[in-house]
C-alpha cells in the first residue's frame, strides 16, 4: 500500500479515537462542564472527518455553528442552571447493566450491517459501439470515470471535487497491442452558449485484464473549476477508431462532469435551485426559534425581578 494511503488511514484512526474518547467522556463524566468540553473534542473530530471526506463547507459549518454557537450556548446554560452549592457541578447518571448491554447490542447490529452490506461503488458506465476497419466486427467500448482517489465513481453530469478525475475505457473483442487516447474539452460560456475547446489529452496503454476485455485508464489532474467533456478513442498499429464521447455531443450539450474545489458553490446553487423552499422555511424556523426562546428566557428575567 502506498505511504499516502497509510497516512490517510493513520489520520482517520487518530481522529476516530479522539471522537470516541470524547463521546465516552460525554457519556460517563461525573462533571457536567467536563462533559461539555469533551463534546468539543467530539465536534472537532467530526469536523476532521468531514475534511477526510472532502466536504469542506460542512467542515467549517460544523465548527462555526456547533463549536462557535451551540457549544457556547450549552456552556452558558450549564453556568445558568447550577446552584452555588453544587461544588463539583455533579452530573448523575443511572447506568444499568441493561442500558450498557442494549447499547452494545445496537452498536454491533449497526456495525454488522455497515460492514456486511455491499455498498455500490462503481459509477454507471456508458457503452458505445464504434465501427472498426473493414472486414472486422465493430468494437464495443465501455466508458466510465472515477474521482481522483480511484474509489468513488462519478456519474454523468456529476462533480469532481478536487480537480482530479480518472477516465477509463474498456474494449471488448479487440486483439493485439493497442493504446487509448483521451481528450478533455473544457467549456466556456460565451453569449450564453457553451463553447467547447480541447483542454488536455492523455494516453494510456491497454492493460490485459482478462481475455477478451482490456482496460485503459487516463487521469487528469489540477483541473481548474469548470465544466468538462471527455472522449476517447483506440489506436493500434493498424489504425484508429473514431472519437467516442462519454455523454451526449453537440454544441449545447451538457458537461460530463464539473470540476470543483469544495462544496461551497454546489451548495449555493442548490439553495437557489431544488432547496429553495426548505431554505426559506429555515428562515421561518429560525424566526420562530428566536422569538420562542427569547420569550421563554425573558420570562425568567421578569420573575427574577
Amino acid at each position, binding site marked *: 500500500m502506498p505511504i499516502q494511503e497509510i497516512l490517510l488511514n493513520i489520520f482517520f484512526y487518530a481522529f476516530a479515537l479522539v471522537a470516541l474518547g470524547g463521546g465516552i467522556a460525554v457519556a460517563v463524566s461525573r462533571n457536567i*462542564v467536563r462533559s461539555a468540553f469533551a463534546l*468539543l473534542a467530539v465536534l472537532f473530530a467530526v469536523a476532521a472527518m468531514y475534511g477526510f471526506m472532502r466536504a469542506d463547507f460542512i467542515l467549517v459549518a460544523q465548527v*462555526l455553528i456547533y*463549536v462557535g454557537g451551540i*457549544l457556547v450556548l450549552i456552556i452558558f446554560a450549564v453556568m445558568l442552571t447550577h446552584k452555588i452549592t453544587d461544588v463539583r457541578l455533579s452530573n448523575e447518571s443511572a447506568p444499568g447493566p441493561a442500558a450498557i448491554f442494549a447499547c452494545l447490542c445496537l452498536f454491533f447490529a449497526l456495525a454488522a450491517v455497515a460492514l456486511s452490506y455491499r455498498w455500490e461503488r462503481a459509477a454507471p458506465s456508458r457503452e458505445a459501439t464504434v465501427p472498426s476497419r473493414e472486414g472486422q466486427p465493430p468494437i464495443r467500448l465501455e466508458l466510465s470515470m472515477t474521482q481522483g482517489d480511484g474509489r468513488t465513481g462519478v456519474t454523468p453530469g456529476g462533480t469532481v471535487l478536487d480537480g482530479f478525475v480518472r477516465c477509463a475505457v474498456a474494449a471488448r473483442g479487440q486483439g493485439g497491442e493497442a493504446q487509448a487516447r483521451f481528450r478533455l474539452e473544457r467549456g466556456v460560456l460565451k453569449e450564453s452558449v457553451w463553447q467547447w475547446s480541447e483542454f488536455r489529452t492523455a494516453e494510456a496503454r491497454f492493460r490485459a485484464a482478462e481475455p477478451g476485455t482490456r482496460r485503459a485508464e487516463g487521469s487528469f489532474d489540477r483541473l481548474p*473549476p469548470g465544466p468538462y467533456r471527455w472522449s476517447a478513442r483506440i489506436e493500434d498499429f493498424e489504425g484508429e477508431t473514431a472519437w467516442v464521447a462519454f455523454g451526449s455531443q453537440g454544441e449545447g450539450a451538457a458537461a460530463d462532469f464539473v470540476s470543483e474545489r469544495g462544496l*461551497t458553490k454546489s451548495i449555493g446553487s442548490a439553495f437557489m435551485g431544488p432547496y429553495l423552499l426548505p431554505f426559506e422555511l429555515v428562515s421561518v424556523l429560525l424566526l420562530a426559534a428566536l422569538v420562542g426562546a427569547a420569550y421563554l428566557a425573558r420570562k425568567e428575567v421578569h420573575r427574577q425581578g
Partner: protein
Amino acid sequence: MFGTAIMPVETGLWDAVLYGDWYVSLLGIFIACFVIVNFIAVYAGVNTLMERKIAARMQARIGPYQVGPHGSLQWLADALKLMVKEDIIPRNADHLLFRLAPYVVFGGSFAAWVALPFTAGWSPAVMDVGILYILAVSSAVVIGILMAGWSSGSKWALFGAMRSAAQIVSYEVPVGITLLGMLLMYGTLNMQEISQAQETGGFFGFLTDWHGGIFSWGLFRHPPFTILAFLVYYTAGLAETNRTPFDIPEAESELVAGYHTEYSGMRFSFFFLAEYANMFVVAAIATTFFLGGWLPPFGHLVGRTFLVSPLLEGVFWFMSKCFFLVFVMMWLRWTLPRYRVDQLMDLCWKKLTPVAFINLMAIGVGEFWHLGGLMLGVAALAALGLLVSKEVARAEPVIQTPALNPKS
C-alpha cells in the same frame, strides 16, 4: 524557503502529497509552519515593545530604555522573565482543563493564520472556504476562554470569561454580516481570489477592467457603504480581540485580569500571544477584504518590481498594511476611554448590526444593478452630510461626566 508550497491560485497541490513528492511537500509545510510560529512569537514580542513605546510617547514618557539601544531588546528580556517565572496552578482549579485551555486559545488564533494570503499565490493553505474557515476557527477561542475562566476556580476569572465570551460572540454578528456584503463583490470565499479580485474594477461595478490601484480596492468599490463596512468591521474586530476601548472582560480596575487572572509565567504568555496573533488576524482580514491584500496601492502606474521579487513585494505590501492597522489599534488604546458593558452591547446590537445589514443590502443592490447602487450611494452621502451638518450646528461644548454606574 517557501519554494515547495508556492502554487498557482487556481490549482491545489494536494496531489503532490498524495501522488507526488509528498515528503518534499511535507518538509515544505514543516518549514513554513516553523517560520510562522516563530514569526508569531517574535511579532508578539516586538508588538509589546511597540505598544509600550507608543504608550510612552502618548503619555510623554520614554518607555523601556535600559535593555538594548533605546530599549529595543526589552521584549527578549520579557520573554526570558516569563520563562523563568513560577508556574502556578491554584488549588481550586480543575487541573486538566486549566492545562488544556492555553492550547485551545492559542490553537484557535494560530490556526487562522494558515489561510491568510501573504503574497500572490502563497498562503500556507489555499482553501476554497478561506474566510469562513478563519471565522470558524476563531470561534474556538471563545470555548478556550470559557475553559480557562471556569477551570481557574476564581470568581474574577469566571466573570471575565463570561463577559469575554458574550462580547466576542456578539461582535461576531456585525463582522459576519459586513464580510458577507463585501463577498458579494468578490463572489468567492478564497482569500487568494479575494485579493486578486481587487486588482481591477471599481466605482459601483461600472468599471470592470479598470486598474484603479487604490480605487479598485474593496474600500472604494461602493463608496459610502464599503467605507462604512470597513469602519464597522474594524470596530467589531477590535472588540473581538478584547482590546481597549472594548476591554471590559479584562478591565484591570474591575476584574483584575479577566479570564487569565490565575495564569502565570509561560502559561499566561500564551493568552498574551494569542491576543496579539488575533490582532494580526483581524488586521489581515481587513487588509484582504478592504485594502487590496498584497496589491500595491498605485495599480500599474509604477512598475511592480522595485523589490527583488514579486512574491516578496506582495509580502511587503501585505505586511505594511497589516502593521499599519495593528498600529492604529494601539493608537486607539491610548486615545479612547473604556466602554461600559451596556454601551458595549448597545453599540454592537443597535448600531453596528443594523448598519452592517444596510450595507449588505446596499452593496447587493449595487452589484445587481449598478445605477441603483450609485443612486443609493449618493442618497446615503447626502443623508450623512445632512446628519453631520445638523450635529455640527447643534454641537456645544459638553463636559463629559464619568459614568455613575460602574456596575456591570
